[in-house]
């Protein structure tokens, strides 16, 4: 892009703008105040003719920077699409005429509003440069897969099938993980009637035979350094030697461990070998090899077996696992079938509180009943020895019999899955007390969790965790949203799941990993600003090394270099601008989004003097939720105050307090900040952005005191995209409150 900048403004008169506004006046504003080189108005700017006019100016006049004064930036994006040109849009339709009454009284303030938006648009576009894309790319196309269970092997095979080389690292001496220890697995195809072969042997063979896949067994990740497209990973092998691999992106499929059944003495685990967990039963089944299953204590053929569901799970007390492992019901059904298929006369009883067999699992459940497996809704209290046998003592919830008992040769505890997710980087450094009181039974030796990825990231060696040690993700619309760009976790490390889901998950994660390395190569951002070519730059000469950016970045993109300056890893960055908001000396910026692009808009607004009785209120609105909500309010023709001026921001986290102090110093009477819900159930698309922004804003109070302004002049509100009915009212109430309070004394300085 040539340094030669040429600015053009276009004002649309369609959709009633022509009737409601004085377009000529707007043109003058753009020329005189906006200092635009070319200014045109058009009856219907978004149609072919209008767009042609703009393209013609680009071609013949060499226009580089375009300001469109028409509808919302969310509308007509297909028409107003000029690649490699800076574009700003003044929202005259949804932002002005649709939210103002069509009356003579309103005409003046409406026009003022429109003129301000033109001023702001011009100011913004002038402060912009066209993003050139992150130059600091890397070209590695190899995927690193950590974990050699079905999830990891699936990721490896799918990546290879797509044409990408893979390095697969497995900490044990063999591939297959838990799945390789199964006798059979739950069926994943019609008919959903009987256990089927786990198919691990085939899968392992495929992996071993694949020239695209390099397998390291008995190996751990010693160090992961770099960023998507340019990771350098050290792999510590059995021999103690270190292998170094150039990696483009990472899939972490480190799976789960079984919940420790020793924490369940009440169920007799550890007291008698005839109480086993589900893995223990698989071992017995493999030993029996299709014949009758024998019990460990005396090798007697098992004639009666009881399955205790939710053992150490779904426990609200916090003593055991809070969650449900989602797979145990089907697994117990499968294991009960082991017995029934070998010998129909065996009594197999499953004791459950809620039987959870979603989808076609219902067929599997029915099939077990047909085979004579008995399902009893009850809550097991204890498992006690009874004359060589075991007695399962439970509360039969149907017959409401608190002293119900089943005598069984063997008892299987469905204990569930615990994610194997490495170091919890958010955990308080102080030694946390032993969980609950329950585990206290066995004196706890605190073993420091071993890191899985050993990332050299400033924010810690592993991916952040969500709840209960499961790795982080947005969890609903964007399950692959990760806080470590280019690193995707898959399988039971993310959520308890069975093999079918794990393999589906692995396939998805593989695509995201491939996408990440491809985008890194092109210098483009990953979700949610996918394709964004802008990236943060820092003026190091101004940096005070306060470290706020490196600490706050929700994606751990910023490290510190040897001179303790922030080191931006652009391809880890998600372009939310939190670093920019955090920086007290304002040295961080994006080409098309900076302290200046927003600051200039704030300053561009025309502030009437304090006797005008026309307050000005600045609204900084999250572009993902608050801004669309305002648009939809406008589409509904829900009116709101003409005193507000709205500036969309990438995220509340990108709001730099300077904007607020500048605004107040410049004579604004109030500032509304509209961001997404933060906290555990966060709705911020940058995960922690709105939370960090809020934390920062909580400190603005002192500044206000310093200026001896009322604290209410800055109003932080949580806004959801559905608030289009309530938002206008909240704005109007605030405007009224400001009028009540009186205008700011800082005008005209």
């Amino acid at each position, binding site marked *: 892009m040539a340094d030669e900048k040429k600015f053009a403004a276009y004002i649309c008169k369609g959709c009633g703008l022509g009737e409601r506004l004085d377009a000529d006046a707007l043109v003058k504003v753009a020329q005189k105040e906006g200092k635009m080189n070319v200014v045109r108005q058009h009856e219907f700017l978004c149609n072919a003719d209008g767009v042609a006019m703009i393209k013609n100016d680009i071609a013949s006049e060499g226009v580089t920077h375009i300001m469109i004064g028409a509808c919302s930036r969310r509308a007509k994006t297909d028409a107003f699409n000029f690649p490699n040109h800076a574009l700003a849009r003044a929202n005259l339709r949804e932002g002005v005429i649709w939210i103002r009454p069509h009356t003579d009284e309103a005409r003046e303030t409406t026009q003022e509003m429109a003129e301000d938006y033109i001023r702001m648009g011009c100011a913004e576009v002038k402060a912009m440069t066209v993003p050139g894309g992150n130059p600091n790319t890397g070209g590695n196309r190899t995927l690193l897969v950590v974990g050699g269970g079905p999830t990891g092997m699936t990721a490896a095979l799918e990546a290879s099938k797509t044409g990408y080389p893979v390095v697969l690292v497995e900490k044990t001496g063999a591939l297959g993980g838990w799945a390789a220890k199964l006798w059979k697995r739950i069926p994943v195809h019609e008919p959903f009637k009987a256990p089927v072969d786990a198919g691990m042997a085939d899968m392992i063979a495929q992996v071993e035979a694949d020239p695209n896949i390099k397998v390291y067994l008995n190996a751990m990740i010693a160090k992961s350094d770099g960023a998507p497209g340019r990771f350098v990973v050290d792999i510590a092998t059995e021999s103690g030697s270190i292998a170094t691999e150039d990696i483009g992106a990472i899939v972490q499929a480190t799976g789960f461990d079984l919940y420790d059944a020793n924490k369940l003495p009440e169920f007799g685990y550890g007291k008698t070998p005839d109480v086993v967990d589900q893995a223990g039963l698989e071992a017995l089944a493999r030993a029996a090899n299709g014949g009758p299953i024998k019990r460990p204590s005396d090798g007697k053929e098992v004639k009666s077996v009881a399955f205790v569901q939710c053992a150490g799970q779904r426990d609200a007390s916090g003593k055991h696992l809070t969650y*449900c492992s989602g797979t145990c019901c089907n697994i117990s059904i499968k294991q009960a079938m082991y017995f029934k298929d070998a010998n129909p006369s065996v009594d197999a009883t499953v004791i*459950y509180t809620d039987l959870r067999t979603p*989808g076609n699992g219902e*067929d599997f459940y029915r099939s077990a009943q047909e085979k004579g497996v008995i399902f009893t809704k009850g809550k097991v209290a204890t498992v006690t020895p009874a004359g060589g046998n075991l007695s399962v003592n439970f509360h039969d919830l149907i017959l409401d019999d608190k002293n119900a008992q089943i005598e069984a040769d063997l008892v299987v505890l469905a204990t569930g899955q615990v994610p194997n997710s490495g170091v919890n980087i958010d955990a308080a450094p102080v030694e946390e007390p032993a969980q609950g009181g329950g585990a206290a039974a066995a004196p706890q030796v605190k073993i420091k969790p071993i890191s899985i990825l050993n990332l050299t990231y400033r924010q810690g060696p592993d991916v952040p965790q969500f709840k209960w040690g499961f790795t982080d993700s947005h969890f609903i619309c964007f399950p692959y949203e990760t806080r470590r760009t280019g690193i995707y976790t898959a399988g039971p490390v993310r959520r308890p799941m069975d093999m079918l889901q794990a393999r589906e998950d692995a396939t*998805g994660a593989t695509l995201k990993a491939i996408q990440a390395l491809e985008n890194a190569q092109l210098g483009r951002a990953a979700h949610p600003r996918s394709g964004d070519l802008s990236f943060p730059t820092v003026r190091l000469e101004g940096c005070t090394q306060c470290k706020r950016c490196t600490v706050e970045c929700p994606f751990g993109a910023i490290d510190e270099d040897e001179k303790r300056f922030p080191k931006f890893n652009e391809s880890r960055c998600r372009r939310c601008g939190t670093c920019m908001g955090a920086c007290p000396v304002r040295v961080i910026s994006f080409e098309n989004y900076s302290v200046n692009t927003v600051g200039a808009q704030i300053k561009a607004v025309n502030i009437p003097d304090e006797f005008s009785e026309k307050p000005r209120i600045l609204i900084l609105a999250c572009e993902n939720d608050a801004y669309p909500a305002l648009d939809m309010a406008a589409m*509904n023709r829900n009116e709101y105050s003409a005193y507000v001026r709205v500036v969309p921001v990438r995220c509340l986290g990108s709001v730099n307090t300077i904007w607020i102090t500048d605004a107040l110093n410049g004579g604004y009477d109030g500032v509304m900040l509209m961001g997404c819900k933060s906290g555990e159930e966060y*709705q911020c698309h940058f995960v922690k952005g709105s939370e960090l922004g809020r934390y920062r804003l909580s400190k603005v109070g002192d500044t206000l005191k310093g200026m001896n302004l009322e604290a209410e002049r800055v109003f932080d509100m949580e806004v959801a995209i*559905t608030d289009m009915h309530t938002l206008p009212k909240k704005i109007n109430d605030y405007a009224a409150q400001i009028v009540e309070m009186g205008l700011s004394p800082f005008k005209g300085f």
Partner: protein
Amino acid sequence: MTDVVATNETILVVGGGISGMTAALEAAETGKNVVLVEKSPSLGGRTSQLYRYFPKMCHPTCGLEINLRRLKANPRVRVLTLAEVTGVEGAAGNYTASVKITPRYVNENCTACGACADAVQVMVDNPFNYGLNKMKAAYLPNAMAFPQRYVLDSSIVHTAEGEKAKAACKYNAIELDQEEETISIKAGAVVWATGWQPYDAAKIQPYGYGRFKNVITSVEFERLADPHGPTGGKILRPSDGKEAKNVAFIQCAGSRDENHLRHCSRICCMASLKQTHYVREKHPQDGKSTIYYIDIRAIDRFEDFYQKVQADPSVSFIKSKVARITLNESTGNVVAHGVNTEGYKRYANEHDLIVLAIGMEPSVKGVNIPADIVFDSSGFIEADPANGAVFGAGCASNALDVNRAVQSATAAALRAIQVVNKVARAEA
């Protein structure tokens, strides 16, 4: 004539719901060209008709906004709305799909200014709200509609009303002479993401859906709670518009039932648990919810959501499949009859409104997928080599919640990419 540039390296995605959009966007953001075909006038699908998601109680439109932004920013996805795939010929790496395009009667000149809607008087059922209210016959499908372009209901096209609409449009956006057309699109791989439909509640006779106005389905309940919905977010019951404060939720309405859907629809338990929040949200003081269930299937990380609802005194759980519903003719209330199986307690409980947690039926069921595809006994698309390069995604492939549907769609995108990459290598 709609023109679409597509080759054997193009991926055809059928269905513009969250699964289809995800598959299309993930493929496009990996550098592939995609044609996305949606049969309704706008994208978003069934999730866009939900008020909130479990377990975060966030709003589906929030994720939709992001996906639409991704779409607007991505030239690699070609979106066709009001378009239905009627046939797919060929084999992996070389498919030709016939796509029937129904006229919208509004062209890309439309600025969504709404002048046509102001001009038109005729009202038609609003499908976005499951027909719970009516809308102008010239309409924007919903506030988030993409493309953001109005639609003329075919019923008015050749009438005076149609002419009124045309006259009202300053931008020559209305074309009353548009006709149905069928185009053919080449594709190397097809992702089938046509989602699900609620099971026909009227078939569950003892519950009297259709006989009793105040028996509604869970999907309809979402519309009642949604500020964008027919009641502006107030839970007003259909019979008399009275605010429903005592609401019952009946699980397995159609699911887990040999007489109806044999499979478990997976989402209904969580949906009802979520919807008890709506009742409390609207009536913090005197809202009351009752859930009738066989097993509460709050699977894996959702369990604590269940535990929170259990702790809520305004929600009660009864382990029972309701036997039948009767009507209290004097109050308009509906009465659930049955037996609490935990200890055999009989009940006949009167409620303002009863919500059937309606089962999930794959949309491919009944529709004959124009390619011979392997289904499971419930009509979901099975993953099977016989399907060639036609990949089921989301709820067309299984009863899934949104999160799992998106995972499935992302996986399907990779499978499709593998096929077109092979084509590319061959052609290179």
